[in-house]
């Protein structure tokens, strides 16, 4: 049954995320094109005299604006994906659609698990797309002389190689903590929406947002206090250990909070559900 829930959740979320992703991809391609255009224009503008030089200077500012806009779109894209994931969660469970979802012959925890896994998958997809498109722009749009910024790529791999060589495990641990953090992000949003919908009869969206801020405040306060203590202790022992320790602590926190958030969410769905 979980598989079927996953299938339907993934499909429903894809209906929004796929068109958005395609738009972002187009935006990235346009951005790269604009950058290349900017290089051409700046060459023209550099010429000492000529009407073309003046024109190209004017065009240049528009092109730069366009590039900035596209970069902004790219940066905002993962947030848009996340919002659409949460909106699907809200709509499928706490509006009229909830009458169908909660009467399916599946365990309540399966419903939440499916939403969590599908949310995570799409969120990761959005990060991967972001990185891939960012790389695309950097590779093909940042070298005035060549189409492919080979020297840039070379330097990048040099840096990566160095980091992995000296700080390999640290980088790995840091990535894990980021991943755990995004797990927690989704679980916290789901919990906030659930609490908001259970507690408030009207203005449930506002209530959910409010609950989310409260949860976040509590969590980040707790995390800061604990990691401060632990890092202070660790630094006293061994300097480089401090970085490791803070990554591990934040990863552990995220995992614990995620599990707690999911458990509380299931409890509320089972016992406190009251669809309008």
């Amino acid at each position, binding site marked *: *049954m979980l598989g*079927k829930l996953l*299938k*339907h959740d993934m499909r*429903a979320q894809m*209906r929004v995320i796929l068109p958005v992703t395609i738009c972002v991809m187009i935006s990235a391609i346009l951005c790269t094109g604009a950058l290349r255009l900017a290089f051409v224009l700046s060459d023209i503008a550099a010429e000492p005299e000529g009407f073309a030089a003046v024109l190209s200077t004017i065009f240049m500012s528009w092109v730069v604006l366009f590039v900035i806009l596209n970069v902004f779109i790219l940066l905002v894209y993962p947030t848009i994906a996340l919002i659409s994931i949460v909106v699907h969660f809200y*709509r*499928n469970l706490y509006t*009229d*659609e*909830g*009458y*169908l979802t*909660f*009467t*399916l*012959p*599946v*365990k*309540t925890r399966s419903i939440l698990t499916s939403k969590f896994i599908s949310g995570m998958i799409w969120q990761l997809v959005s990060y991967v797309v972001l990185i891939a498109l960012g790389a695309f722009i950097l590779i093909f749009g940042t070298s005035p002389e060549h189409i492919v910024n080979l020297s840039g790529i070379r330097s990048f791999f040099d840096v990566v190689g160095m980091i992995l060589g000296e700080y390999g495990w640290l980088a790995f641990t840091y990535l894990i903590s980021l991943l755990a953090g995004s797990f927690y992000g989704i679980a916290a949003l789901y919990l906030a929406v659930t609490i908001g919908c259970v507690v408030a009869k009207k203005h449930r969206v506002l209530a959910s947002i409010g609950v989310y801020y409260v949860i976040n405040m509590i969590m980040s306060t707790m995390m800061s206090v604990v990691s401060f203590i632990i890092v202070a202790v660790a630094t006293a022992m061994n300097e480089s250990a401090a970085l490791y320790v803070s990554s591990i602590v934040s990863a552990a926190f995220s995992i614990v909070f995620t599990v707690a958030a999911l458990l509380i969410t299931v409890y509320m769905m*089972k*016992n406190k*559900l*009251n*669809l309008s």
Partner: protein
Amino acid sequence: MNAYNESASIPILTANMLTKSYGSAPVLNCVNLTLPAGRIIGLLGPNGSGKTTLIKLAAGLLTPTSGEILVCGRAPDEVTRGLVSYLPERTYLSPSMRVSETLDYFADFYADFDRVRAVDMMSRLGIDDSVRLRTLSKGTKEKLQLILVMSRNARLYLLDEPIGGVDPAAREYILSTIISNYASDSTVLISTHLISDIEAVLDEFLFLRNGGIVMQSTVDDARERYGMSVDALFREVYRC
């Protein structure tokens, strides 16, 4: 108790001292009830008498404040949800779904769903299965939901106000569809405040008032004992 026990002696729906309150006011107050298999039963009462709450409790959408409710002897859980086919008062299908996707959805999750029957009923209504639900009229959407719910071979059908706010021709269609599709030996619980339309369809009825059952009887017994139709009886009982 094993919910798949085919013994006819297990009542389909049982309530023992079932109470549901929001805050201090109880919407259902110490309700005791036993519904046998193979009947069409009317849950009758004015708005606010607790009909929808009772149905939601049986469907597993609400948890009792105290007391218990059992479907085929089992507290509501994912197993009982597979035994119950629930039609709420509202449209619970996503408007962006296509008709064919709703069929897929029901076929995916409900082993007792008879897709052939559903498709047949839909085509007789002239519903094109490639269109999205938001393009259908409200009446057609309601009939679509009814078709999906009644195409399941469930043990208990919970229909919450299926004929309210619907024109007479649609009402006839809805009643015909209910009668010709419910699995035999299954129980259909219909909640409504429109009694005269539904009286001929019922085996039994329950009068609900202020969260309690004030009368439970077969239609024949009531007519014999009180010498009037259930509709007239209702007006008597609920006279302000």
